């Protein structure tokens, strides 16, 4: 797992949060973990295939998730229902797609699978058990943590 795979996700989150939420995320301290485990209530998992393979896990605290969707929709949100989790899935999908565009500039061509949202740790998919790096993105409304487990198709 190379650290240079992380920066595209940071750049993509800044771009997407700026446009969609008028928020400016700052980067917290990276940490390595042994496997992808949800750290907050609202989660979105995305698989990656191609030159890099692995999984991404977006973990949003419930209050942050509800506030994000309130900013986008202009409506108060009170529960993590299908509307809220679908909106989060789309945001995670857009960030991932943009991050892959940045990676493609380094000649790494990848595809993503449709996002899978789940609340809590229940229903967590069997994701990569390989090591991951957690990228915390701190905003005024909470901290999103993106766990990134990507590995080159061939030996790195």
């Amino acid at each position, binding site marked *: 797992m190379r650290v240079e795979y992380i920066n595209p996700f940071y750049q993509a989150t800044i771009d997407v949060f700026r446009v969609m939420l008028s928020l400016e995320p700052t980067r917290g301290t990276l940490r390595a973990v042994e496997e992808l485990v949800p750290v907050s209530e609202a989660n979105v998992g995305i698989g990656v295939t191609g030159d890099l393979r692995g999984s991404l896990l977006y973990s949003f605290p419930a209050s942050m998730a509800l506030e994000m969707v309130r900013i*986008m929709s202009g*409506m108060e949100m009170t529960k993590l229902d299908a509307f809220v989790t*679908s909106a989060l899935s789309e945001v995670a999908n857009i960030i991932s797609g943009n991050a892959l565009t940045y990676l493609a500039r380094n000649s790494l061509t990848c595809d993503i699978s449709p996002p899978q949202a789940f609340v809590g740790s229940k229903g967590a998919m069997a994701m990569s058990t390989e090591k991951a790096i957690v990228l915390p993105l701190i905003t005024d409304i909470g901290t999103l943590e993106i766990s990134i487990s990507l590995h080159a198709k061939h030996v790195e």
Partner: protein
Amino acid sequence: MWKEHYRVGSDLIDTQHQELFRRVSAFIKVVQSDRPWEERLEEVEETLVFMQHYVIIHFADEEQLQQEIGYPGFEKHRQIHENFKAEVQAFAKTVELEGFNEEKVQEFSAKVMTWLIMHVGREDQKIGEFLRSKEVTN
């Protein structure tokens, strides 16, 4: 939902965007309302029919503007419009076959909301920037 910084600088396009945001916002209110689903179905159906027609009109007008001003990103932008139209049509086809399901409609409305914000907030702003750069040089 609409924000003033979404303006691109064309009265027609800005008015259409405001109408789209207004409709999507009303759609979300209906989808997220506590009223029984059966009572809301008619409004959901109406919005879907509106979306199918209005996006075609709006995209056509926006693409015409892009061609008139010689916007260099026209082809890529047109493709994004085509993909979105296909998604709306695919959803309409699903409900035609399976009927309206509340969770599916919630998912669809969330998708439309995020798409609209991201598209108008980023892709369409590039048209606005191009438009302004032309005004400066002319």
